[in-house]
């Protein structure tokens, strides 16, 4: 377990009390200049850059290619891998490809359903689910593929998964959480949390010894966004107090209020030692991440 696989992200959990990652959404198209700006701005202020895989089932540049771009710019990438678009052959070859390109961290997800995205007519794959994908990573780490064949050189990925602390009902979510740990997940990134008390309760019942939990922080940009998420995004609950706080901010200052809220939450999570880190999703506003971290000091 203690072997160093060359993952700076993994190492950060050993050397720091509180690890921070940020999300990079690959662009739709080949112009990556803005994304590279974000990478340059973030790579030294966070411990890892987490690259989404056709997020929300919208076709974009592949996560793996962007991970390599991050490496080229001196950052630490975390590859997101979903089961939606690839069968077990494609998933394994993607993992091997990631390894030879220098990617050391992988986040295993099921993936949103096809119909929510921009190619709703596509054939959904879901050959494996996230638990089985984690097991697959475990097999590759042992030098074998999913069918049990020996590999000429295996991998040593630092594998993670996701969990939704606000899921309702929570019990089946917790059962799956335990299965993911059993299947080899070493770090967890949570769905966006806004209610720290709820998150505390989740951590108490999680029995997540030995795994690292990173609280998901999604930057609020308007009270409307908060209401929209409450209504439309499963597993996200923004308390009324935060919505009011956003609404009270004057029109031009709402982003500031969002940054203040995110910073305050990260500070509380860190100072109260509620979890091992935070994962910041500043969707479309990646340049704000350094300011969120400043606000967290």
């Amino acid at each position, binding site marked *: 377990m203690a072997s160093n696989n060359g993952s700076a992200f993994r190492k950060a959990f050993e050397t720091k009390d509180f690890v921070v990652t940020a999300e990079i959404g690959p662009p739709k198209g080949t112009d990556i200049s803005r994304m590279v700006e974000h990478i340059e701005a973030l790579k030294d202020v966070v411990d890892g850059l987490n690259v989404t895989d056709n997020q929300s089932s919208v076709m974009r540049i592949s996560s793996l290619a962007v991970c390599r771009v991050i490496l080229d710019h001196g950052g630490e990438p975390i590859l997101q891998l979903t*089961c939606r678009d690839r069968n077990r052959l494609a998933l394994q070859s993607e993992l091997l490809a990631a390894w030879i390109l220098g990617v050391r961290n992988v986040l295993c997800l099921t993936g*949103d359903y096809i119909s929510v995205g921009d190619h709703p007519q596509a054939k959904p794959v879901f050959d494996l689910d996230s638990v*089985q994908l984690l097991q697959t990573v475990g097999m590759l780490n042992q030098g074998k593929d999913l069918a049990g064949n020996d590999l000429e050189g295996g991998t040593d990925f630092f594998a993670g998964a996701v969990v939704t602390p606000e899921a309702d009902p929570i019990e089946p979510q917790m059962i799956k959480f*335990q*299965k993911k740990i059993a299947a080899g997940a070493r770090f967890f990134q949570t769905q966006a949390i806004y209610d720290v008390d709820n998150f505390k309760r989740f951590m108490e019942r999680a029995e997540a010894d030995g795994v690292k939990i990173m609280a998901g922080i999604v930057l609020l940009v308007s009270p409307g966004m908060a209401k929209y998420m409450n209504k439309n995004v499963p*597993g996200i609950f923004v308390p009324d107090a935060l919505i009011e706080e956003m609404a009270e901010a004057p029109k031009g200052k709402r982003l500031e209020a969002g940054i203040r809220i995110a910073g305050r939450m990260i500070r509380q999570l860190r100072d109260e030692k509620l979890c091992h880190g935070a994962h910041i999703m500043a969707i479309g506003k990646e340049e704000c991440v350094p300011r969120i971290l400043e606000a967290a000091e």
Partner: protein
Amino acid sequence: MIVAERKPLEQIEGMIEGMQKILVAGCGTCVAVCMAGGEKEVEILAAQLRMRAKLKGIQRTVDEITVTRQCDREYLDQLAKYVGQYDAVVSTACGAGVQFLAERYDDKIVLPALNTLFIGVAEGPGQWSQRCMACEDCILDQTGGICPMTICAKNLLNGPCGGTNHGKCEVGDDRDCAWTLIYRKLEKLGRLDYMRKIQPPKDYSVMTKPGRYSHEAYEEAEKKEDKE
């Protein structure tokens, strides 16, 4: 049973364009129960086709017949003395029945009048829902009789995804989250341990198309006959 729906009349009209003598052949089994292709639906479709032709001023004869099943040769044989008299047979069977009919009368144009939907159950009058994927490896014993391969949009085998939403699915509020149903059922039955067990990846090799199956009893008998 197999659940199907009638194609729009316009589409069926397009298939039989220029043909004068049409036999509408119904199937008295699954598609009769789901009100898509039984005796009565055959009558309706034939009447519609006749009326449509008259409105367009086209010469067209449309006759009707319904057999017990179109997926058994014995019943298809009953059509033998009739099909020769028609330009085409419009079958209101499921896709399997249409193919078997086309195979049995292979010099005849056989056309589908239905879209086959799924293997399902009658939820209520006029309402059906899918319940089985024919995945050839049933795990309902471990999931409280609720099929994650079918009810879960992503056919997840190890629990709900992050899209589960107060017991509903991220694909739409009109769909139940399979794993919430399974959890509640297993909890009620005191069998939650089944849910804690990691299910291995599905073996899709058994689903290689086209599926074939022969009953053991007949296999044995055939072997015996071969020996003798």
